[in-house]
């Protein structure tokens, strides 16, 4: 029972540290954060997690026994708020909405968010460790080329399909045709309004004349 959460935390810690080690910008950010401790308390389920930053990564520890005063910042949040925070929502916005309660150094929260959301993994460097520099570069170059080709091919396909649907088969109206139709409809609307006003005026005059004729006789 005791060992399972420790195993999960150990796995997460290893994964995070491996990812951080592959990001060229991380060492600088970690140096600035080294020695800081962030205590995260979840409301549901009740869990506490301590993130202790050091120059080569982050240590994850269970925080139930940890004294709050030993952490530089304490955050209390629900799992939904955590997912929003990790996906890049601003700390201030979440705080003003009352979904995030923070005590201590708020800058540490922003630094943590930047560390994990701005990860730019050097996959080519990792491949080079396994395959060697030249094969890794050729493979990465091949993948990049395939990616570019895929993007270009999908753009061309979209263009061809839209041309067929709008121009050749005329299955759907194109934007230009829709604009022309809208202009015509607006003109028609204006003309009918005008006609309606005219009719109203004629009706009014007719009614006046009729009423004058009645009073004269």
């Amino acid at each position, binding site marked *: 029972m005791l060992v399972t959460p*420790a195993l999960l935390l150990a796995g997460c810690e290893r994964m995070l540290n491996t990812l951080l080690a592959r990001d060229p910008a991380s060492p600088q950010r970690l140096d600035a954060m080294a020695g800081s401790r962030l205590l995260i308390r979840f409301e549901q389920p009740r869990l506490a997690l301590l993130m202790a930053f050091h*120059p080569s990564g982050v240590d994850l*520890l269970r925080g139930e026994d940890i*004294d709050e005063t030993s952490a530089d910042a304490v955050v209390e949040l629900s799992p939904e708020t955590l997912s929003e925070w990790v996906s890049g929502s601003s700390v201030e916005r979440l705080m003003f909405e009352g979904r995030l309660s923070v005590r201590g150094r708020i800058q540490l929260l922003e630094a943590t968010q930047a560390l994990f959301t701005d990860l730019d993994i050097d996959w080519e460097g990792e491949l080079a460790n396994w395959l060697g520099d030249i094969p890794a570069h050729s493979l990465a170059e091949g993948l990049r080329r395939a990616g570019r080709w895929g993007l270009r091919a999908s753009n061309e396909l979209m263009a061809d399909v839209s041309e067929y649907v709008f121009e050749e088969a005329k299955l759907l109206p194109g934007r230009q045709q829709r604009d022309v139709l809208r202009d015509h409809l607006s003109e028609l609307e204006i003309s009918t309004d005008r006609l309606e006003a005219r009719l109203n005026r004629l009706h009014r005059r007719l009614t006046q004349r009729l009423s004058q004729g009645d009073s004269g006789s």
Partner: protein
Amino acid sequence: MSPTEKHTTHFGYEEVPVDEKASRVADVFHSVAARYDVMNDLMSMGIHRLWKRLTIERSGVRPGHQVLDIAGGTGDLTLKFSRMVGPRGRVVLADINASMLGVGRDKLMDNGVGSNVEYVQANAECLPFPDNSFDCITIAFGLRNVTDQDAALRSMQRVLKPGGRLLILEFSKPENPLLSKAYDEYSFRLLPRMGQMVAGDAESYRYLAESIRMHPDQDTLKAMMEAAGLDRVEYTNLTGGIVALHRGIKL
């Protein structure tokens, strides 16, 4: 009756003169030092890393603390502690065995650990530090190799600061008889063979298995810690009691 009075002590299942145990334990660790980490991973199937992780979680160590890692061996705990105490803190890696200390120092240096770690070759029974000097003391899988364990606990209590924590991670007695049986089979039949294959030394690993059986059980060790002057002593069984983590506080 203490081991000094009867002039012999146990070395695994053997009775040896008190003066001889330290040197015979030293021989065992000289012989296994180079492959200690590999064997630990193999013997415990990697679970020793989780046991040590739990010890770190329970230690309550924070930046600026002074930590003593006795019988620190190849420095697994020291590595984590050095990151946790930061540049203002200090971690002392102490081991009675020069070979183990050498392996530990090399490993820590390879991991970029530097200025906040000191290496001291010391006997746990008479620690060469002033009274009240450490916030936390850990001894992981080391106490059973100490000749006079009561003296070692008293010595640790002496160098611990008031409010400081002593954590002892050590093999213990499994609670479940079935697990106990399986564990006996594993440690007396499989372990020496693995030792022979990987480290080329079955005898040392037979000693490890025997010394585990001779080590005091959970409640006896708890009583020993209380007798040495530690308060609020509690223990947690890990992996069904194969290992127990004892924690005491000096008040």
